[in-house]
């Protein structure tokens, strides 16, 4: 619930480094991180288009102790960022492709105008990430951005490259302010893309950075907390017609009753909403709280 999140911790095979980054994130006050696998969907035959999701980093009791004292849990999620340039790569991102569905969050990085428009209008993704460290290969336009906001897709701005290099800093600020003119501070998430623990910054500092990009105080704080939670909810309802249901998974299994489990999105008929299968276990009903259309 509005916990501070960092949704872009690049996943690498170097577990020692990754462990340090996650530990630093906990120390700084983040309660949720997403390990990001950045891939170009492969076209080779016999090879899965995207790799399978990484396993969460193992954290010792000592690291988690301060969080446990406050009765909070640390959430590690998996995220896929697909860099797409051609239509072929775009089609690999459909939900029918098994590895794609196993990631918690799906993000896309379009490299040209056509892909950007496709991402804003059609693609079933949660985050659109633009490479802000260089001059954008296409001009940002209001119509696709408005459409993306209406569909509930968030735009991501990363800040770690700004820490690494002053030229990148200039590009990031310039591109971020450009993006702000169109989306007016809504639907933005700020994340790190930190390759080393030292490149992480505390959530309040990141929110201040958001103010620098052009958001107001409330929006900037949302960019690190509430908008990230909205991304997770959007990811849960990805593929269904309209995200209006928040379903709580029931873990207990009573004998003689079919357990209620998450139904993969119905790819055939997009209009059917997710429904439960089987009977409700006695005494515990799935909590369905109707919410407003998730934006």
């Amino acid at each position: 619930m509005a916990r501070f999140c960092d949704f872009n911790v690049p996943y690498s095979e170097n577990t020692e480094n990754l462990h340090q980054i996650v530990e630093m994130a906990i120390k700084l006050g983040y309660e949720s991180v997403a390990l990001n696998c950045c891939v170009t969907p492969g076209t080779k035959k016999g090879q899965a288009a995207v790799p399978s999701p990484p396993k969460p980093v193992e954290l010792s009791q000592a690291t988690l102790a301060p969080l446990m004292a406050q009765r909070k849990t640390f959430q590690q999620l998996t995220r896929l960022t697909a860099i797409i340039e051609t239509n072929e790569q775009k089609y690999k991102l459909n939900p029918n492709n098994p590895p794609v569905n196993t990631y918690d969050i799906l993000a896309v990085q379009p490299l040209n105008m056509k892909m950007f428009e496709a991402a804003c209008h059609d693609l079933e993704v949660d985050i659109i990430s633009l490479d802000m460290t260089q001059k954008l290969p296409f001009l940002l336009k209001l119509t696709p951005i408005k459409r993306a906001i209406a569909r509930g897709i968030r735009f991501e701005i990363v800040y770690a490259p700004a820490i690494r290099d002053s030229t990148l800093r200039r590009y990031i600020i310039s591109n971020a302010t450009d993006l702000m003119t169109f989306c007016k501070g809504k639907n933005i998430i700020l994340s790190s893309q930190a390759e080393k623990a030292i490149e992480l910054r505390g959530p309040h500092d990141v929110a201040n950075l958001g103010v620098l990009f052009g958001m107001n105080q409330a929006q900037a704080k949302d960019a690190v907390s509430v908008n990230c939670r909205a991304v997770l909810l959007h990811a849960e309802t990805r593929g269904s017609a309209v995200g209006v249901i928040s379903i709580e998974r029931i873990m207990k299994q009573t004998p003689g009753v079919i357990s209620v489990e998450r139904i993969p999105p119905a790819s055939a008929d997009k209009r059917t909403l997710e429904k439960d299968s089987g009977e409700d276990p006695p005494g515990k009903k799935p909590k369905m709280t109707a919410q407003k259309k998730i934006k």
Partner: protein
Amino acid sequence: MSLTLKVDLSPPRSKLVIEKSSFDDEKSRHRKNVEEHYFNHKMELFIPGCAELPPSAQAVFDMSDDFYIIKDLPLTELINKDFIENFVKKGSLYMLSHNTHIDKHNVYAVLPTGKLILSVHKDTYEELGLVGQPSQFNRKVKRKFVVEVDLTQDIFVPGKKNYERVKKGFQRTELKADFLLSWKPRGTRQSAGPVLSHFEDSYRCDRRSQVQQTNKHTELLLPVVNSSELEESDDGEWCTAREWYEWLGAVSCGINCNEAPEHYISRYSCPKPNKLTATAVRRSMTGFIAPGRVWAVLEAVRSDMRDNQCPSPWAALTVHGFADSPVSWARREHGFHHGGENLYTLLIFRDSTYWLFQAVGTNDICP
């Protein structure tokens, strides 16, 4: 491109209200200010010119005043009939949920006026099914709601619609939290024992005492203040109230203000004009402090000044509230943006006049 971007780089706003009055003035609001600031986390008394606290003040600080932490208490316990009859209605009960951040989690509090305040998220609010107001901060996006349940009402009894509705809401959402609890029974010199025995059987209770700390300063530069003038003087004879307050904050944080302004680490210096004093004492108490204790300290300091037990020209009493409390003073809503301060300072002069500083953060209503 016709779209323009306005970048507002001003820092998050915080508010400071300074007023001066006399304790003997009947319209003075000092009593109301102390008694309506329900949840106090830290109280600090600073007296320049004394090596130790004067006797009455020392006596008040020495009186042990413990509070309890009750773990995993469900909210249904707070609407228990016995609980309401024996504790809420028979004294001042202060309860605040522990380790819950007001901007991230749900926060619950019981005010001594008998109101149960729930500051909940939209999801919880919709599940709870009770009527509440959206938070006064960030009004455009209705994300946090404040629900108020009046526990002292005559119609709030089991069997009546309102009670049953609240009970069902709590049972449905299964809300629970750790609570800080302090109970001051009305009238008789009863101890707070009964409230502990009420909860002890079913829940884990911890008894905690306030943490006390004494700091002694030597050779400290004190700004000169004139009790009747808050603003700047023409001849530079006294410091403004704001300069004095900033200086007091520096002393509380342990910053050495005696150094020359060109010092590398801190360029802060004591505002001019100032006087050197040989000693000063700073006594603080941290925990969960009831307003009654703050009032006792205030009265003790005043009586010490009247009896000449304390040779200093003034004394400063600072009280900090909880950063995650849902209310600041009385029923004013309190929030946390990048800081959750809600504190006040009473600068008490020898001639029974005082200055009152009330400071709140960004997501706060001006006191």
